[in-house]
């Protein structure tokens, strides 16, 4: 891609966001929407800036992030392990495949009440929900990536003396890495979404709770703040993951 | 570096395809520059001038990356040259059209239609009634040797069969010029020789103008009246070789014919020179 093309992309991309901002502002200034329902962008971003240095809000962000990372971490560990195991062992595959087929389309959020009953109303139930939702994309893409590893790569390694037991870690895992990272990216976005939703449904802290609390007291500005925060968080985390991906996949052919 | 001169006096009226030396395709000082990520662009074609008569089978031959496909795409109207102009029957080429039918190496069949549906596509587009289009298509499918496969989908066909369908599909809408871009490149050697034979048999029937891109010397010599040998980076015409072998051509006879062998040896030497020139300019 030429430098010209990239900068053209950026310019084009900013236009819709700028347009939305302009539309937002004009809706308020020209009185199409009452301030109580749609606060002007200026006051929303001012409030956001104010909140970002307030201890209470920062604690909420911390709670959300804790649950998000815990759930995501569990999903990655379980997903990669089970995915790899199912790809290399036909026995495990036979068990895992139908179970995943049944559980994957199931709306895990429907299980949330069960989790609340069994694990209480605090962190554990939310972390479990996040893990349950993020697990499947990661598992599936790990399985897919591992089973697509070219047989010839494995044969080359074994001919060079790699014992069977190490083939999994030295050949299959690295070769499946692009696919695994794609699954992790999807899992990360899902984690952002689910943690927020779980906190909205029942919680006493966290960004989702902030939104619901603001809604109950009709503080519209305070409702927008957590939404924008989670969007920014999602973008930042996505960017970090992208950076990690670029680093880990240094030598791989362009996918 | 010898170049075939442009024929003067281009005819404005369409010719009816008799054996007159009319310039069917004219390539007039065409250049093609591609933008790359560096500061300098890539000059795929440099100042190409070429004239192709009606009914001629012309091969464009050269090492990979020499711009031969690009030249074909320019004649097809899929790519606009950055300099110069290409004309068909006197009119400048502004875009693709049914007068210049392509056949691609990747087959490019419509996977959601079966063999009959694919072949009928161009005819239906031209407004031919369903019944007539089907009848014509069935004849063509039989001609390319795929009778009985009309209801098969592309995913059920082998590479050679897919290419036969692609050829039938293009012939169906009766283009005056056939543009073939390494059509047999993706096929195994045996299928390739069979299709070369079949192509010549089909071509003998109405002798359309054919522009055939290849990197195989014996394929070019076997099929063509003229072989245009190209250099690369930038792409220029090194030489145009007239192939004076009698038609109809049979592979078994030709392989033992010393004239054929001499053509192949000479042109292979030309390509060697092209490659050597690159290493030691």
């Amino acid at each position: 891609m030429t430098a010209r093309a990239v900068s053209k992309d950026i310019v084009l991309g900013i236009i819709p966001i700028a347009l939305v901002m302009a539309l937002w502002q004009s809706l308020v200034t020209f009185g199409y929407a009452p301030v109580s329902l749609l606060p002007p962008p200026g006051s929303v971003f001012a409030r956001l800036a104010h909140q970002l240095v307030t201890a209470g809000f920062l604690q909420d962000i911390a709670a959300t992030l804790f649950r998000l990372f815990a759930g995501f971490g569990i999903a990655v560990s379980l997903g990669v392990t089970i995915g790899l195991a199912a790809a290399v062992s036909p026995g495990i595959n036979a068990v895992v495949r139908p179970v995943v087929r049944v559980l994957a389309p199931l709306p895990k959020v429907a299980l949330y009440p069960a989790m609340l009953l069994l694990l209480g109303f605090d962190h554990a139930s939310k972390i479990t929900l996040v893990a349950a939702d993020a697990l499947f994309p990661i598992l599936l893409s790990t399985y897919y990536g591992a089973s697509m590893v070219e047989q010839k790569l494995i044969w080359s390694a074994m001919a060079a003396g790699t014992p069977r037991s190490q083939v999994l870690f030295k050949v299959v895992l690295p070769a499946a890495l692009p696919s695994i990272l794609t699954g992790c990216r999807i899992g990360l976005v899902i984690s952002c979404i689910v943690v927020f939703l779980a906190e909205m449904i029942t919680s006493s802290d966290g960004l989702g709770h902030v939104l619901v609390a603001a809604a109950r007291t009709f503080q519209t500005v305070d409702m927008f703040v957590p939404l924008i925060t989670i969007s920014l968080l999602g973008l930042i985390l996505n960017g970090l993951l992208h950076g990690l991906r670029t680093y880990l996949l240094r030598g791989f052919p362009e996918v | 570096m010898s170049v075939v001169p442009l024929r003067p006096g281009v005819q404005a009226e369409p010719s009816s395809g008799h054996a007159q030396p009319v310039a069917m395709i004219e390539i007039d000082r065409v250049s093609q520059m591609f933008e790359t990520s560096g500061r300098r662009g890539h000059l795929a074609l440099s100042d190409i001038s070429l004239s192709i008569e009606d009914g001629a089978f012309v091969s464009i031959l050269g090492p990979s990356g020499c711009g031969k496909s690009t030249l074909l795409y320019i004649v097809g109207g899929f790519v606009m040259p950055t300099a110069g102009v290409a004309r068909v029957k006197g009119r400048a080429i502004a875009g693709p059209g049914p007068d210049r039918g392509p056949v691609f190496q990747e087959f490019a069949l419509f996977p959601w239609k079966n063999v009959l549906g694919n072949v009928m596509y161009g005819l239906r587009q031209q407004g031919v009634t369903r019944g007539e289009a089907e009848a014509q298509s069935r004849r063509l499918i039989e001609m390319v040797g795929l009778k009985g496969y009309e209801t098969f989908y592309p995913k059920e066909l082998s590479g050679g069969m897919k290419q036969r369908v692609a050829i039938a599909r293009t012939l169906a809408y009766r283009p005056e010029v056939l543009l073939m871009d390494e059509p047999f490149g993706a096929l195994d050697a045996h299928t390739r020789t069979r299709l070369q034979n079949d192509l010549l048999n089909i071509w003998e029937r109405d002798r359309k103008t054919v522009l055939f891109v290849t990197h195989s010397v014996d394929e070019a010599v076997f099929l063509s009246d003229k072989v245009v040998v190209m250099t690369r980076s930038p792409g220029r015409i090194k030489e145009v070789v007239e192939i004076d072998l009698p038609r109809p051509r049979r592979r078994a006879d030709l392989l033992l014919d010393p004239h054929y062998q001499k053509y192949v040896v000479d042109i292979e030497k030309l390509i060697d020179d092209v490659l050597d020139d690159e290493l030691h300019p």
Partner: protein
Amino acid sequence: MSGSLPGRRLSPLLACLGLLCVWQVAALVLKTDSFPTALDAIRAIPSILGDREALLNILDSLRRMTVGLVLAALVSIPLGLMMGRSRAVASFFNPLLMVVYPVPKAALMPVIMLWLGVGDVSKTLVIFLGVSIPIVYHSFQGGKAVEEKMLWSGAAMGLSAPQRMVRIVLPAALPEILTGCRTGLVLALITMVTSEMIARQNGAGNILFNALDMAQYDTVFAMIIIIGALGIVFDAAFETLRGSLVRWSEPQFDMPLSFS
């Protein structure tokens, strides 16, 4: 590797039964009031489905879900395809979509309810917004992947640019588009349930949480089974539909990258 076709059809069923057995055993072992056995939950199902009001609630939910899904498809598929074929269009919409993506659409419920009231419109709108994104993404991928040479062949036959869009890009991208719709279907169900859990008015999610509030644990788990069954049934039905629509396509990776 699973062998014959009946074996493949049977194993998900076996998996269901297996999971239910695990549940039953776990409940018996744990012996808490709040965790009824699988059989207790199953026994509670007919009373829910027999209750007219509950049934109407569930059907209302499904109706909103369908409307939102269909509208989303009508808007997102053309948008995604155009993004796939035109770099300018893609660059224009991409950042906007990336900003909107991590925001849970069900979380917009309170805001939207404030603007549009508590009726069907807000719930349908949320589903529409939530489902649009995967459909746009998959349509984009599908449109981008269409072989250039196929379009050139069409152009040589005389097809104009809009004709090529409808008659070549659309059918060629259809397998990928339908994968996006399948993801969208699962997502629609989830968004529907979640938005009803948040904005407690009516609908299946509401029934679920009402039962939770009233400590009717059998009902809670029965609703979970019902919603879960809906998800599985819809997914299986759609997959069959998709299979018949794109019988001509090369087999794709058959397990969905399913979405929360």
